[in-house]
């Protein structure tokens, strides 16, 4: 307890530490927002709540890590992870998502939880349970007498995440398929009547989500660490962000993603790194309780 107080005091004593924490939080939060955007996509379009979201992220990370072990430059790993995870996502859609699309939501939740267990175990069997990361070998920039350090690798990660997000947004806005996806999200039946092949749209949405997660994971392995069983925490973060921001609210997803990144960094600073997973989960509970209290005001429940 004393340690928590002294850690908190440190923040007030040296305001520049806050700046460092916020910067770190934003750099990692950008990647959370990317995975959460994928979740909001499948949630909004297909009404599937995907608990394997984090395992797609970790899967993409391991693809990138394995490529660097083979001697391929790490930056090539990002597009490769994007493409490979899209293919894996398509197979998963055919095998297990299509049969449960019209079932109740708990079914999809439990089925994707089973998928999360399978993926985490397969990664564990293939690559071992050690934490892994890829060192890009770039320098670190220092500002304000070395109080603030910004590794160029992290900066690059944020830039790539931004570029990917921009690409997806432009795709959703202007391409034929993007328009079909948005139409299906609005009213699947009307879209079918107007000649949109919704089955194809669902398959494409699902594999696009897997691909976005894969690319996010490939960036995460360069700026942070991955481990086969870290998936569930990433899934929970994605749920926190989407629950807080609501569906189809892109600025909200970005803001919530950056926010949870910053809050997690503060939590890790005050309570220690041992509480990292607990902080993500408690944020989820806080968001749920807040949304619930809002709904109670109009005598509704959160569904």
């Amino acid at each position: 307890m004393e340690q928590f107080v002294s850690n908190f005091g440190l923040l007030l004593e040296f305001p520049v530490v806050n700046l460092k924490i916020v910067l770190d939080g934003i750099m990692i939060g950008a990647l959370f927002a990317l995975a959460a955007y994928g979740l909001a996509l499948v949630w909004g379009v297909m009404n599937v709540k995907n608990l394997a979201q984090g395992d797609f992220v970790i899967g993409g990370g391991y693809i990138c890590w394995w490529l660097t072990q083979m001697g391929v430059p790490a930056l090539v790993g990002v597009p490769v992870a994007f493409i490979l995870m899209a293919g894996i996502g398509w197979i998963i859609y055919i095998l297990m998502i299509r049969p449960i699309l019209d079932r109740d939501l708990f079914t999809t939740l439990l089925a994707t939880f089973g998928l999360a267990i399978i993926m985490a175990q397969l990664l564990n069997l293939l690559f071992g349970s050690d934490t892994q990361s890829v060192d890009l070998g770039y320098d670190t920039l220092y500002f304000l007498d070395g109080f603030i350090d910004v590794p160029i690798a992290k900066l690059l990660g944020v830039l790539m995440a931004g570029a990917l997000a921009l690409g997806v947004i432009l795709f959703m806005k202007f391409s034929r398929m993007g328009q079909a996806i948005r139409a299906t999200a609005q009213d699947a039946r009307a879209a079918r009547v107007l000649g949109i092949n919704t089955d194809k749209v669902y398959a494409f949405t699902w594999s696009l989500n897997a691909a976005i997660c894969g690319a996010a994971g490939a960036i995460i392995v360069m700026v942070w660490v991955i481990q086969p069983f870290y998936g569930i925490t990433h899934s929970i973060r994605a749920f926190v962000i989407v629950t807080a921001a609501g569906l189809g609210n892109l600025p909200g997803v970005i803001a919530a993603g950056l926010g949870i990144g910053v809050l997690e960094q503060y939590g890790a600073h005050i309570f220690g790194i041992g509480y990292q997973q607990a902080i993500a989960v408690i944020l989820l509970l806080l968001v749920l309780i807040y949304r619930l209290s809002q709904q109670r005001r109009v005598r509704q429940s959160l569904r």
Partner: protein
Amino acid sequence: MSKKFYLYSALIAFIIVAPFAFPDFKTQLATVWLMIIVALTWDMTGGQMGYNSLGNITFYGTGMYVAAVVAIALVYDVGEYNNAFGGGIYVFTSQQYFLGLILGMVAAGVFCSLIAVVIGFITFGLRGPYFAIGTLGVAIAAGELVSNWDWVGGGQGISLPVFPGDYDVGKVMFYFLFAGTGVILFVFAKWLYSTRFGAAINAIRDDEEKAEAMGIHTLQYKLAAWAIAAFFVGVAGAISAFQLIHFEPLETAYQTINLGIFMVVCVLLGGAGTLWGPVVGAILFHVFKEVTWNYLLGWQWVALGALIVVTVVYFQGGVVGWVMDKFPQWFGLSRVAEDVSEDEQS
């Protein structure tokens, strides 16, 4: 003396004889009973009330910790005991052991009921998948917080005294503790589902708004059902704590992705919303788990995950649901009743 009387007598006789007939499988049989208990209690809220919790494991872990703390606190200072890490010598007489076991079981059950009411008060406003994710969050958070709490041993967990007396006698005792709890729970659930209470929670599952409009105070019923479920899970956790002797927070007590998800799969495999479904599912699941553990070393988790996916995606009615569908006359159901139950499932 009806046919049913002979059937139940034969079952009771089998339950009593089983640990002596299969002496090598005493611990396995006890674990089957543990699975039956957690599956039946999960079905109480999940299958019968329509609130699919992924966080019932919170009560199992909390039950373990409450029982251990009570048993230790009767004799020693808890913080000191847990921070000794085998350095000190702590002796429990057999009288202290059994007193701790019994008080621990009761305290664990009561305490878990209380926290079920508290957690339920917050989370029962959530519906469907939000409730599942919210309770999963509660379970993970509880595990993480306990593993950072040094007074109860932190990440190292707690060691309890071993059974005073013969090792084999201890195994038989734990079997009968689990079996007794399981039988009491089964009889209690059978009675409960036949009362007005059972009808009320089924009404909540089918349409909560209408149930409330009919004058059922839904929140009270939901809290009561969850508190009953939590009581039995807490007792089962307390017995597990003494059976396992040593347990640690994340892998044994708050084992979210092990037992926490297994209980759901047991119910779905057997058939949710039926009395026998969780029992059948728990036995089948445990056999499947042990077979894969033995023959698919390393791949057992993949096989279990695949079982979850296959059960959920392709076989959601479960074994009992499937039998009901094929032979409705065995359950006193007519064809018309079968059509109604199909409507409910869709």
